[in-house]
């Protein structure tokens, strides 16, 4: 037996390892482009007041938890109690982005289920959503005091995610500045 005889086997093994690594990746999961990038400039009306326009200065000077939701979004209701609990904590503001919704539908949904947000940005045509790379609601971003996006979570938040990832990150961001 020479070494040469093992070459096909070797190639086969390398191939298998490459495919096995490929299997551990989830192609449906998109990497976020905007981690450590400034939150994009925007100018949108708020959900509850058509005449009130908010922009990126809203996110400067304090830590913000930015949550994308819609009255049509079925899994948003699952994370909603958790957001209501987060509202009771201090040290950060809660900003909602009411995405692809009708104004009255969004308002009614928050009236019915409780409003955990300090400010709700109204984004019916995905203008802000596409800018921050939203794929599907709910999505949650953490923005630091300088207006940089530091974290993104796709899907409904769970108590575990909030306790293990979000609150420690907020504590860390407080130490930073």
């Amino acid at each position, binding site marked *: 037996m020479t070494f040469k005889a093992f070459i096909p086997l070797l190639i086969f093994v390398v191939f298998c390892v490459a495919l096995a690594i490929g299997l551990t990746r989830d192609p449906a999961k998109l*990497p976020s*482009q905007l981690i450590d990038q400034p939150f994009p400039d925007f100018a949108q009306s708020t959900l509850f007041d058509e005449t009130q326009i908010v922009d990126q200065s809203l996110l400067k000077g304090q830590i913000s938890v930015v949550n994308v939701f819609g009255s049509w979004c079925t899994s948003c209701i699952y994370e909603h109690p958790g957001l209501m609990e987060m509202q009771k904590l201090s040290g950060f503001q809660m900003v909602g982005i009411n995405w*692809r919704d009708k104004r009255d539908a969004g308002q009614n949904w928050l009236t019915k289920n409780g409003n955990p947000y300090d400010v709700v940005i109204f984004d019916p045509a*995905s203008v802000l*959503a*596409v800018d921050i790379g939203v794929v*599907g609601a709910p999505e949650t971003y953490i923005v630091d005091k300088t207006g940089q996006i530091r974290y993104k979570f796709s899907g409904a938040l769970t108590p575990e995610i909030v306790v293990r990832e979000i609150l420690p990150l907020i504590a860390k961001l407080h130490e930073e500045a």
Partner: protein
Amino acid sequence: MRALLLTFLIALLTLPVAAQNAPDYSPEIEIQAREIGRKLRCVVCQNQSIEDSDAPLAADMRNMVRERLSAGQSEAQIMAFMQHSYGDFVLRSPPVQGNTALLWYGPPALLIILLLWFVFRRKPAS
């Protein structure tokens, strides 16, 4: 009777036009927008372009492409904007760069290596 039926059938032909929901862009912009749209991946239903997809987000992205074209932006600017938000993933044709080098150069390289191997292996025999 036949004329009436014919009129009715011709009238039916105009229905698809009525079904279009964004008729307020010029044909040039529409053609350009479709071309760009076919190069952009719908991030919700990932194997379709935004032109093919029925996802609401894709519809909004299609509108954005048209708005930006109307505002005088170039295809490159629109692609850059989408890439800024969604990364290389949004491009249906992967760009030639470091992490895609194997994808683009691998197959031709393999072909050349195999051809060389084939040629040089046969020489001693002849």
